[in-house]
């Protein structure tokens, strides 16, 4: 692989093109310059740290360390998802953690073992990158599914109670909200699978091609990862609703949140 190494100076040269942005902002009094500086600085610091960190993790490539890092990423994802629901943070953390870890670890190991046929399933170069892509997608999906589900029940409280009286069974009365929430979570993934490559090349493919991989190889990876994302996101969305629902309803099937 012959990647053109980017020097720090050449990155800095991009700042020349930012000068007109700053000038226009100032002239038109669009109060954005502070934010731009802050965001750029933050990005540089954040990514530098991640880069240093990943570099040493990749160099060590210790299976336990890699697994621990993956667990850390899953915990952060569970925390973000729980926080997005804004209610009952700690009650939701464990159910969400399980909803993240089960499908993600299974799909990830399957992917590494049978799709890429790695000798070392816990190889950092694959585990952390692919794991991160799966997790990021599940995070978006679970935020949608869990929020949709509970908001729909809250907004249609009387409808839910009426169904509950007709059915006598919570699972049956919840089914329509469950279905809508799973659809809302999965539809964006299906849409992006459909249009992939037409609008923009996906990030992973772009990265691989820039890294010197042939487009046809990059495409194979991209197809495999999209399928893996769909599966992980689907199961994660379903499990997130099921696991949180054990905490969310009281013994009379009434939503507590």
């Amino acid at each position, binding site marked *: 692989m012959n990647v053109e190494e980017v020097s720090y100076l050449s990155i800095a040269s991009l700042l020349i093109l930012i000068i007109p942005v700053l000038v226009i902002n100032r002239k038109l009094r669009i109060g954005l310059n502070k934010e731009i500086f802050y965001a750029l600085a933050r990005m540089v610091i954040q990514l530098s740290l991640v880069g240093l960190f990943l570099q040493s993790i990749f160099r060590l490539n210790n299976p336990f360390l890699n697994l621990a890092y993956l667990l850390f990423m899953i915990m952060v994802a569970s925390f973000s998802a729980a926080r997005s629901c804004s209610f009952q943070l700690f009650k939701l953390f464990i159910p969400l953690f399980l909803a993240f870890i089960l499908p993600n670890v299974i799909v990830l190991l399957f992917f590494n073992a049978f799709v890429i046929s790695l000798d070392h399933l816990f190889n950092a170069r694959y585990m952390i990158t692919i794991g991160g892509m799966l997790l990021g997608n599940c995070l978006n999906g679970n935020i949608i599914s869990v929020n949709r589900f509970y908001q729909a029940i809250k907004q*249609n409280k*009387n*409808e839910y*109670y*009426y*169904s*509950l*009286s*007709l*059915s*006598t*069974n919570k699972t*049956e009365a919840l089914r*329509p909200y469950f279905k809508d929430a799973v659809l809302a979570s999965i539809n964006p993934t299906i849409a992006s699978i459909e249009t992939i490559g037409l609008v923009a090349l996906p990030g992973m493919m772009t990265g691989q091609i820039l890294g010197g991989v042939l487009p046809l190889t990059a495409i194979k990876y991209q197809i495999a990862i999209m399928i893996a994302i769909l599966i992980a996101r689907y199961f994660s969305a379903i499990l997130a609703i099921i696991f949180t629902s054990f905490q969310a309803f009281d*013994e*009379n*099937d*009434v939503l507590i949140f």
Partner: protein
Amino acid sequence: MIQFKEISLAFGDQVVFADFNLNIAEGEKVLLRAASGRGKSTLFKLLLGFQRSDQGEILFKGRRLDRNNLFYFRRNIAYVSQDVDLRNLKVWDLINEIFDYKYNRTISITKEKVMELIDFFLLPADLITKEVGQLSGGERQRLGLIICIMLNRPVWLLDEITTGLDQESKKVLVNYVLKQHKTVLIISHDQIWSKNNLVRVEEW
């Protein structure tokens, strides 16, 4: 058959029930009358377990409403909520869904039976092809009652099912309900329910 015993309930500092008692015998038709906000609908919700009381207990044929008997309460009670909050599906699909619920599967429903009831309650024949959202309030109320009738459970809770109906429809509906060998609790501001000696009026 149904006993509310010393029920107390308050939402914040608004007291809805304080030591409320009510006994209902099997087969009785009871009209609940109280000013708005005095907890009539809440009483139905308490009976179905959708609302908990702060104190007191509710019995159904001697069984106390708790976790173990919740299902027993619900399967013996058919409820028509005030706005008949049905999901926006085609009426016929909705009926099929309701009678496809596990507990209701033993009940056989046919289109003829539904059409008969639709006709009896002076509803248009094309009702079952419409979506719930297209129905008027009065049509929804009668649809709720039709579902309640077909569920054939021993106790009926009817929350404002005659409001806004024309006199003719009201008469048909009230006569039908009062003739049933069911235990019926009625919430209504309509005088028509009490113009006979079949209905016991509970006022608070």
